[in-house]
């Protein structure tokens, strides 16, 4: 059994933790309250190479692995989830499909800018009519000569509406399969393509310093060569992207859960009630012990899923388990941390208020907790 991180992973973890403490923590509350996108922080994260972590050096990446990305996400989310989700969506949803399934030309054109953080990519799967059931995709792309003509609407797309968004990869129906089911493909649409516009801006409960937009495609034309991967393989391709993405979201959730422990430990040692530090009460100690336990076990779950994935072993079930337990841990810890902080926990003055608002989406995005349970049950051989 191996125990602990490699020296390189540990140094990366420490570096990102330092960055989050010194540069994110002091300013993020203000961005959050203004619901503003933190361009400056994203640029700094870009210069640190975070957006290129799992990509090869030849395309401007850092030559690291997916686990390195997860560690960075965990340390960022320990301080703030908005910047963490911006990185997660930029890398694992925005750039990853191009890296995994794109043509050489697509890789050379897009990856260097995405890896540097100067540009962001987005991933458009969810539609107004449904997110969990990807076969309900209504957006269409039909071939006209050498062009795809795209029509439809996408909902809740992270990173799609920033000033530095360069592209979105959309899932669209491109025909009918032999069995009558819709054939789905992935198509890359650069920002600024005529016929591609932003719809409503959402007023969100959490992740308020991250960008989430609705996308509208109205006879939007892109070259035929903008197909990502193989025609008709879209469904399998985005399932792969989502399977990996679950490990990343689990890491992010563990970060939030651990951030709750950090904040609670500090506060419990300072705050006094009835003439004693609140941390001297067993009720508070047990709460914090439970929080640490959840964060720790969820971390082990995502480490396990990531190590299977990197070893080339099946990891679907473990990724779903990791996302399920980690998002539970984040929710439970956010609730408990807010309780430890009392009334101050319900204000925006302390990070735990933000943690509370940011935790819920983790049980919804990139597959709801119900969907994770469905995946686990199916992987155990139960009927669909």
């Amino acid at each position, binding site marked *: 059994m191996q125990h602990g991180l490699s*020296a*390189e992973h540990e*140094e*990366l973890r420490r*570096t990102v933790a*330092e*960055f989050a403490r010194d540069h994110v923590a002091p300013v993020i509350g203000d961005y959050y309250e203004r619901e503003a996108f933190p361009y400056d922080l994203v640029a700094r994260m870009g*210069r*640190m*190479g975070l957006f*290129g*972590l799992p990509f090869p*050096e030849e395309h401007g990446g*850092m*030559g*690291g692995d997916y686990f*390195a990305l997860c560690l960075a996400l965990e340390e960022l989310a320990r301080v703030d989830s908005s910047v963490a989700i911006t990185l997660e969506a930029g890398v694992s949803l925005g750039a990853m499909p191009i890296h995994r399934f794109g043509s050489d030309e697509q890789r050379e054109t897009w990856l260097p800018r995405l890896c540097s953080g100067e540009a962001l990519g987005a991933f458009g799967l969810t539609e107004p009519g449904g997110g969990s059931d990807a076969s309900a995709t209504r957006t269409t792309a039909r071939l006209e000569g050498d062009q795809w003509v795209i029509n439809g609407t996408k909902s809740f797309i992270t990173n799609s509406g920033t000033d530095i968004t360069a592209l979105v990869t959309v899932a669209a129906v491109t025909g009918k399969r032999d069995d009558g089911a819709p054939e789905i493909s992935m198509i890359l649409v650069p920002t600024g393509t005529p016929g591609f516009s932003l719809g409503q801006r959402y007023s969100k409960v959490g992740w308020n310093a991250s960008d989430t937009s609705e996308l509208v495609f109205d006879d939007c034309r892109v070259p035929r060569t903008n197909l990502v991967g193989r025609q008709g393989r879209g469904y399998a391709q985005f399932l792969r992207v989502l399977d990996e993405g679950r490990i990343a979201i689990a890491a992010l959730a563990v970060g939030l859960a651990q951030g709750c422990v950090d904040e609670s430990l500090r506060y419990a040692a300072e705050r006094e009630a009835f003439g004693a530090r609140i941390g001297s009460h067993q009720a508070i100690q047990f709460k914090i012990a439970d929080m640490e336990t959840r964060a720790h076990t969820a971390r082990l779950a995502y480490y396990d899923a990531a190590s299977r994935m990197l070893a080339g072993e099946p990891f679907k079930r473990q990724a779903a388990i990791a996302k399920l337990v980690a998002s539970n841990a984040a929710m439970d810890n956010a609730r408990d941390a807010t309780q430890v902080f009392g009334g101050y926990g319900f204000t925006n003055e302390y990070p735990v208020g933000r943690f509370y608002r940011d935790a819920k989406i983790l049980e919804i995005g990139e597959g709801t907790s119900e969907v994770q349970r469905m995946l686990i049950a199916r992987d155990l051989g139960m009927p669909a």
Partner: protein
Amino acid sequence: MNIVVLVKQVPDTATERKLTSDDKTLDRAASDGVINELDEYAIEEGLLLKEKHGGEVTILTMGPEQATDSIRKALSMGADKAVHVSDEALHGSDALQSAYALSRALGRIEFDLVVLGSESTDARTGVMGAALAEYLGVPQLTLADKVDVDGQAIKVQRLTDYGYDVVEAELPAVVSVVEKINEPRYPSFKLIMQAKKKPVEKLTIADAEIDAARVGLANATTETVDVAPAPPRAAGTIVKDEGEGGVKIAEFLAEKKFV
């Protein structure tokens, strides 16, 4: 241009620091070691100069075995190689002795410029730049917040209480930097991975031809007569603004003879 950046590992100022009771030195095992903060600015300046003028950046550290953590971080920021002087005999060396020892190690490296922090966060004597330049017989340009190199000429903006001086010298030279000079970069993962392959030369005092009789606690030129932990900070005075807060603050400052 060959640049040597001096890097000292110091106890993390964010953690509690303790003194060892027996020989009045800092208990370095009791707290996490980090790169002396100003040395990160020195490294950044070295890297910026290298990016502009080419050449190599070498890290030079004198300190115990744990200092390899700081060396690794300096290499992860982008330095090319490192020299680590480590020897039991150096324990307890004071500022002058440290400068002597570092000057010996520098004698083995070809350099055009030595860059260092203007002071450390632990011993804080702030004399290293001057002492080292003296031992090396090269010009010292201290408290730099801007450095320009043009051929063999070096020009720095030297921060003073009233503004700044512009100071010029010929290379080779020693430059100590202040915080305003730049913003240190974070190591990228690519460089973190490359760092483990970069050469780190380990030197004992014998390797560096450092005279054992001129270093170490027993031979120190200064003696620490007594040490005491800093007293805990007293609670401050809070002035509540109920319409005359400004007056109260002015009175407070006048009473303390600040104005």
